[in-house]
């Protein structure tokens, strides 16, 4: 290598090092900015109201008043709301993941008449905004089936394939598994369901966890449908309870923020458990589109 070329390479290396250093600094700064609102909410939840209104506000609470949480729990029935939310989420996640897997398997591996048509209808429903079907579904559930003030209208839709997007995601995952595996099993005499349960499902576990997490987040955030279908306050979910709580305690910010932080917790815990799969799963959806 000539001296000039060597010099160029070295200067490129040095330049790369500097840009990476600057990049790192920018990332740290932006990450701090993104986390800042969460920190601000959290530190407020540990302060007295007098401290909140102090000028200039401080970044850290003077004494960490975890007793705010005790006070909050007296009025904000967090455990009750969490339990109610889980009554909706757990069956929905299980059923949604399972039925999405069945459908994804059929679309990825099996041949049958009308496949393209059903696939198009399925993918088409991904583009259909969910709010469009809200009123007819409301009438159907409450008038048609008499399910007033019930969790069933929120849960049962997940027994029907768990949403087109999730079916799509599972199908993409199954397509990425080599077909030779199921062909070998077929030669060994395994049926289609044996292949599904013995080969496919173990191989796409991470995708199924992603689907479960997507359903979790979807239900978690769906304030609109919870408002429509749930009336009595002892059936409130976290989303409904928090909305209502904020209305009651308009100015008691430290308690409101404590309730907010409590509501953050389950999502964060779920995410930390499934994080690895999560990134993997979303990555695949983005790539295969």
């Amino acid at each position, binding site marked *: 290598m000539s001296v000039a070329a060597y010099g160029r390479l070295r200067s490129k290396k040095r330049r790369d090092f500097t840009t990476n250093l600057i990049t790192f600094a920018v990332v740290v700064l932006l990450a701090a900015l993104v986390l800042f609102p969460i920190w601000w909410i959290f530190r407020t939840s540990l302060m007295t109201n007098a401290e909140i209104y102090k000028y200039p506000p401080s970044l850290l609470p003077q004494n960490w008043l975890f007793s705010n949480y005790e006070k909050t729990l007296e009025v904000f029935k967090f455990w009750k709301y969490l339990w109610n939310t889980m009554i909706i989420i757990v069956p929905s996640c299980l059923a949604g993941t399972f039925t999405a897997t*069945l459908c994804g398997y059929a679309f990825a591996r099996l041949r049958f008449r009308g496949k393209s048509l059903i696939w198009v209808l399925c993918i088409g429903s991904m583009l259909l*905004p969910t709010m469009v079907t809200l009123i007819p579904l409301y009438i159907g559930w409450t008038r048609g089936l008499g399910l007033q003030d019930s969790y069933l209208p929120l849960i049962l839709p997940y027994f029907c394939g768990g949403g087109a997007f999730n079916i799509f995601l599972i199908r993409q995952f199954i397509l990425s598994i080599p077909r030779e595996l199921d062909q070998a099993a077929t030669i060994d005499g395994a049926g289609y369901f044996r292949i599904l349960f013995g080969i496919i499902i173990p191989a796409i576990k991470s995708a199924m966890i992603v689907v479960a997490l997507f359903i979790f987040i979807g239900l978690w955030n769906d304030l609109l449908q919870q408002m429509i279908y749930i009336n009595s306050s002892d059936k409130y979910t976290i989303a409904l309870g*928090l*909305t209502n709580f904020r209305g009651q305690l308009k100015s008691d910010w430290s308690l409101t923020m404590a309730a907010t932080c409590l509501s953050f917790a389950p*999502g964060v815990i779920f*995410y930390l458990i499934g*994080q690895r799969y999560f990134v993997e799963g979303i990555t695949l959806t*983005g790539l295969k589109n």
Partner: protein
Amino acid sequence: MESVNKPPGRRSRFYSSEARVAYICLIPAFLGLIFLTYLPLVGVLGISLTNWTGLKSPEFVGFDNYVQLFTADPYLMDSILATIYFAVLSVVGSMIYSLFIAMLLNRKIPARGFFRAVFYVPYVLPAVAIYVGWSWLYEANFGFFNFLLSEAGLRKVLFIADSSYVVPSLSLISVWLAGNLIVIFLAGLQNVPSVYHEAAEMDGANGWNRFRHITVPCMTPIIFYNLLMSLIANLQVVTPALSLTNGGPGNSSRFMTYLMYDQAFVNYKLGYASATTFIIFAILAVFTAVLFKTSHRWIFNEGGDDK
């Protein structure tokens, strides 16, 4: 694509058992597509032609609801404009933000996984809690943003209580929530062949040129996907209005879905609200169609087999 049907041919008995398994697997999806998707879609059109209020039985009124919506409704126009304003700000903001962050995270920096998790975290928090939490940052007297403004010597702003600031304020939150877009962009960036960059660098292309002529073209399919998904999601925005603003102040955050909610579930005008729903559906369809129609002009297909 493998979804193409093959004729049964000689293996017809084998095929039929395969098909039977497939139909069994698809029963849930069949039920869902029929009863939860396409039938309700027809239903909403049907109901929109009646004066159903939920109390008395519906009567057919033709296009009266639509006529009334376009000529006499005090909210519809404001609502459409507010929604489009919100969606455009949020989509543009979150696309730029997430692509920028993804490009930073695509470089070889320490603790990349940790930072990716950090930028993703807002997305997994429950939406209501996020809006309630941010309402404290936006608070009129003691909120954090007003502290910044007064430190900078500026006048205090009411943010979500001010009709001209409420939509940008809510959009900022939805940009903050764009963690899932970052992860998808990042995956796409990792698929841009590094030989392109190396070759361009040899030829002396600077960073901006490489971004403009290599990264962006290679990323167009993913940009399209993110654009489509975030547009559909943001045009349906409703949670901030439900949990925080109740459509106010004035009508400034009376987003279309909130308008429909208000008509149908607060005032029980089911027929009228269905007409609103159909209008919203039409608007969303127009946006989606425009995006699809223009996509072939700017989406770059490597090898041209992307279908």
